[in-house]
């Protein structure tokens, strides 16, 4: 699936939820399904700055596609990062760099995108795109 196809899929899933509680419960569920991150990557060097919770993101290039793994000690932040991993994982650096992550607004999570927001969604996106930029320029 293309990045936008995945975004549409997520928007579709969220459209069935009536209220915030359904959405948050789904995020909590997603956080539990996020593939386990290798403990070797849960170090300072993979830690995202600017979040109240600790969020680690690791990326590597496999056959021209970026593979992301991530974790957080807070559940909702982990649910948000699970969504990001689902959208961006296994795509080329160019695709990731050229992506507009419009699904965040469409699923009603835009409030989490303000720069001072404690869960650091914005910092997570920035870090994932930084990896893409680094792999592209390699």
């Amino acid at each position, binding site marked *: 699936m293309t990045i936008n196809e995945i975004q549409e899929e997520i928007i579709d899933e969220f459209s069935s939820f009536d209220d*915030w*509680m359904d959405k*948050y*419960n789904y995020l*909590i569920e997603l956080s539990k399904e996020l593939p386990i991150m290798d403990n070797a990557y849960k170090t300072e060097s993979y830690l995202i700055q600017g979040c*109240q*919770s*600790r969020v680690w993101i690791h990326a590597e290039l496999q056959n021209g596609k970026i593979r992301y793994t991530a974790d957080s*000690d*807070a*559940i*909702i*932040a982990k649910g948000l990062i699970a969504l990001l991993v689902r959208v961006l994982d296994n795509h080329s650096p160019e695709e990731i760099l050229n992506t507009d992550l419009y699904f965040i607004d469409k699923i009603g999570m835009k409030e989490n995108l303000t720069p001072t927001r*404690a*869960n650091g969604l914005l910092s997570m996106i920035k870090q994932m795109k930084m990896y893409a930029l680094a792999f592209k320029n390699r």
Partner: protein
Amino acid sequence: MFNAETIRKEFPILDTCIYGKPLVYLDSGATAQKPRRVIDKINSLHTSCNANIHRGAHYMSNACTSEYEEARERIRAFIHAPNVRNIVFTSGATASINLVAASYGEAFIRKGDEIIVSQMEHHSNIVPWQLLCQRTGAVLKMLPFNEEGAIEMERYEQLLSEKTRIVAITQASNVLGTMPPLRKIIDLAHAAKAVVLVDGCQGIVHAPVNVEELDCDFYVFSGHKLYGPTGTGVLYAKEKWLEAMPPYMGGGDMVGRVSFERTTYAELPLKFEAGTTNYIGMIGLGEAIAFLNTLDLPSVHAHERRLLAYASERLNAIDGLRIYGTVPGKCSIVSFNVEGLHPLDVGMILDKTGVAVRTGTHCAEPVMARYGITSMVRASFALYNTIEEIDALGKSVELAIQMLR
């Protein structure tokens, strides 16, 4: 008799809905909401009487100046300072502490001197002293608190010595709510010939303040936590120190005569008020004090203590919840964590239910470190909060636990 339901009507913002739910504002420790008369005062100045103070030869300038000086007098009376010369207006408690650290520090602090700072201080009452130590070669000494959140007074007596020059201590911890025994701390410091700076940011909201009786050398607070506007602060200092301290910032309004050869400084307190101050804000803070003066403050403080007692009981009944700071006589701040849950998750779910609390380090990382954690949830109560709102907090915490476990 004080009635919170009646007083709420004076605070327009409390009618706001968040995500379609009534706002339950439990973050007054970060900033308090403003009564209508403060908002109206600021508006009316901007719409009908605004001119720069102290120098104008015209009607509005004189009117603003006299309101500004009237605010100073109200603040003086509120904290029982001997004279308006003791009251310096700043942009906030942080600015007040930095002023003292820089200016008193320049005059009196030398290499090898010691500054005692408690472990429960806000970063604003730690970092300025660290910077002073770096500049001068003075030594920072940490005064610890125990598991319950009480200052370790025995350690304090051990730390005090002929090298001690300054003791910096909060009137009420912004995390633990602890109100240290200031009287004793100040007397012991004075016996060691050290001066004491009291951070009154949280304390002045919940308890009466009498700086002359306390005999502290410096007392600072921010206006915005005391129902006044943001960007307003106060430094009270004994006159002998203000006279001995060099000016902190140079600029307009703080001078007597200026020439390139020699400049003389204005009388106290203007010597420390360089540039155009936030005069509209300070008049707004004067209005907040006037608002408080219409209330019976002992019954306001009793109301806040009832809220604290009820919140402590309500939250303690929740399985796995721990409150940090359990010293008797603490002010109406409750910081807590739920076993196995990240405070940020709890805060985000509370937010969705309309309950506004703070999560994080609360600008007091040494307090977090003391308990070996990185963050807490904090609910802080002001005069406009109600028992019903604490029930809402309790229910939302239970909902968060149900969702997150």
